[in-house]
């Protein structure tokens, strides 16, 4: 067993790598928000312009390939699948460092790297791990998650998409919905019904080629007006048995793994790079609305900040415990519940400050843009497991309460 390099040495090498390829950001990674400068977009969901997105993808793939070659693509991954085998703290340190450079980042790869890759690591066979893991971390392949269906939302186990066996091939037919990034993906983790029953034991997971004949992808326009998600139609799509993830009938367990990583990823974005929860930006909004001296606004601001900060502190405690090797349990879903509640609180607060500027665009910079929070908040309570489903899950698995009958 070889010794890990000291963190300082590792970071020094990382800095050399980043600096050789990407310009350093003008100031520190968290450049203070400047009122009236640049775009006033308040980004709640990833709703990029399709053309800009298509242009960005080659740059993202090049970034991942370069990371791979330099040994920074999968810092905490097992070496047998191309990982570096270093502690998670190294990965976190690299991520922080890379924000100081104008590099593409991995925001578009959250599903691929944060949800599908860890699922493969846990459930795939050796051959599949070698096939998919290096490809995902190099971004040769981008993956999406094909779970929800029009008739299988909260009751995900009632999935109807069918995979029918034909020798060593499977033929998949069905409809999936709420698929983030399907239009960019090369492969999808799909859960299909492979037997009539029993419930939870009749599902099987596959990795399906998103470019295969019979796959149709349509953007799904959500109530914000943008389209972050897709509908995916599968009409007799053929996959080999070698694309099966886990045993036949084990699809529910595979899906649960992916879902737990999804909640973790969503909870983490509570203080992510989007900056929508930036205290500084909120204070500038209050000042520009001329309300900095209003005691009622001040009190409500203090209350909002309390909720936002506590969610962040809880995240930091979770992260520190993970770094110390204490793995979080299903209670990690509490962070996601906090995020959806905080989005709603943020919307309420901001509209109370904006007043009528929230119901019609006056053209004033940094005002109407906040309506994306109001319009996006209901989605946060649903995505990654609705608040109610998460509470059922936590009640059973964390508190040990009897299952509702």
């Amino acid at each position, binding site marked *: 067993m070889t010794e890990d390099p000291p963190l300082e040495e590792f970071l020094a090498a990382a800095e050399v790598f980043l600096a050789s390829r990407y310009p350093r950001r003008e100031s520190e990674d968290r450049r203070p928000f400047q009122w009236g400068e640049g775009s006033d977009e308040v980004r709640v969901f990833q709703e990029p312009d399709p053309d800009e997105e298509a242009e960005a993808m080659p740059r993202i793939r090049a970034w991942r390939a370069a990371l791979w070659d330099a040994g920074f693509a999968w810092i905490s991954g097992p070496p047998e699948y191309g990982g570096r085998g270093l502690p998670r703290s190294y990965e976190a340190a690299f991520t922080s460092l890379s924000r100081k450079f104008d590099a593409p980042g991995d925001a578009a790869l959250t599903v691929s790297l944060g949800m599908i890759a860890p699922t493969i690591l846990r459930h795939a066979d050796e051959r599949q791990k070698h096939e998919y893991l290096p490809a995902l971390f190099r971004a040769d392949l981008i993956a999406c998650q094909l779970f929800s269906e029009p008739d299988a939302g909260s009751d995900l186990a009632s999935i109807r998409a069918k995979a029918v066996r034909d020798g060593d091939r499977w033929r998949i037919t069905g409809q999936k919905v709420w698929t983030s990034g399907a239009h960019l993906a090369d492969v999808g983790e799909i859960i299909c019904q492979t037997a009539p029953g029993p419930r939870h034991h009749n599902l099987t997971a596959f990795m399906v080629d998103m470019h295969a004949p019979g796959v149709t992808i349509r953007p799904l326009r959500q109530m914000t007006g943008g389209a972050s998600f897709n509908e995916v139609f599968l009409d007799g799509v053929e996959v080999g048995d070698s694309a099966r993830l886990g045993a036949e009938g084990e699809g529910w367990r595979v899906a649960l793994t992916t879902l737990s990583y999804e909640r973790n990823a969503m909870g983490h974005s509570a203080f992510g790079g989007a900056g929508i929860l930036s205290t500084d930006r909120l204070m500038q909004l209050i000042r520009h609305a001329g309300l900095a*001296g209003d005691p009622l606004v001040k009190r409500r601001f203090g209350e909002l900040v309390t909720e936002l900060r506590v969610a962040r502190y809880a995240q930091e405690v979770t992260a520190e415990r993970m770094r110390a090797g204490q793995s979080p349990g299903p209670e990690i879903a509490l962070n996601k519940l906090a995020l959806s509640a905080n989005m709603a609180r943020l919307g309420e607060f901001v509209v109370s400050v904006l007043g009528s500027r929230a119901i019609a665009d006056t053209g004033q910079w940094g005002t109407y843009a906040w309506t994306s929070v109001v319009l996006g908040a209901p989605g946060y309570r649903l995505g990654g497991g609705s608040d109610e489903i998460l509470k059922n899950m936590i009640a059973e698995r964390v508190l040990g309460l009897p299952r*509702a009958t």
Partner: protein
Amino acid sequence: MSAVRARPDLAISGEHEELRDMVRKLMTDTSSPARVREVMETKDGFDRATWSTMAEVGLLALLVPERYKGLGQGPVEAGIVFEEMGRALYPGPYFASVALATNALLCSGDETACSDLLPGIAAGSTIATLAMVEAVKDWDSPNTVRAVARRNGAAWILEGAKSFVPHGHAADLLLVTARTHAGLSLFAVDPADPGVETRALTSLDLTRRLAAVVFAGARARLVGADGGADPVVASTVERALIALAAEQAGGAARCLEMSVDYAKQREQFGRPIGSFQAIAHRCVEMLQRVEFARAASRYAASCQATGDDELPVAARVAAAYCGRAYRWVATENIQVHGGLGFTWEHDAQLHYRRSWASETLLGNAEEHYMAIADRLGLGRTKETA
């Protein structure tokens, strides 16, 4: 220089686990719910034998630096102890002596006073508390202190009245704020002095009694600089709020346990009430507040330990959140227990009383919200922010 700031004290170390286990066992052995009910009816309201045991195992010396015969532990360790005290509704003067008095002496920076007074506190022979508040709403505002001290040779003479003094009825040492010609100052007063009259108040919280103290020509010793107590009071309150937040998180955790245990065992309509989503989801919301309260108090303690810039905000965030969380969880705990929860015999009411009293003791959430906005500089213009 590392790109990521590690905060190892946010994770639970083996030593922290040992400390938690030790205090929990001590509380189980000496302060069971039945025992708490027994002693809360007595004149002192707590058990002197338990206090001696706590001194023996070093809990009273926890925050006292080694040079004053203490253990020199920090706010993170203290937070672990306060969480356990909060769970057990420990009715003795631990918060008064450790969170208030010890911190006040340490914040005063008065080496002589510390070396004279802290060893007794650490040994448990001196029960100390802080008499700071006078009238309602004045707790946070040193400018409204009306008690005055005048010099009399080497000593000082104190005149005035304080109220809402935690465990004031049992204290051997009072640390008192009073005004002098130089400004707000801190004094040490012996409550046995003929110029001091202490009266226990009928208190909402049956497990932490408050007292009123009248000073009529009481002899006092100046602690710290004459007129120098404003920052001492501010940092003492900040530290005490962090300790109180941990205590509140612990109390909330105990209420959640009571609710979950009951929801599993109580049957109505032929099934455990915990199988109803109305109850199960309420319990999850309680869990959320408990976990976040623990994280907030731990985070604030860690900020205090490392002198982090976030401390002034984190302390108030923890205070506001944990105060409200405990009160909400204690309230819902009664609801989950139904009629049983509303009886005198059930412990739910003791937590309910404690939660209301604790949330008000050092200022309530409304005041903390305003303080958070101030500390973030909301009132300031962009140029000066």
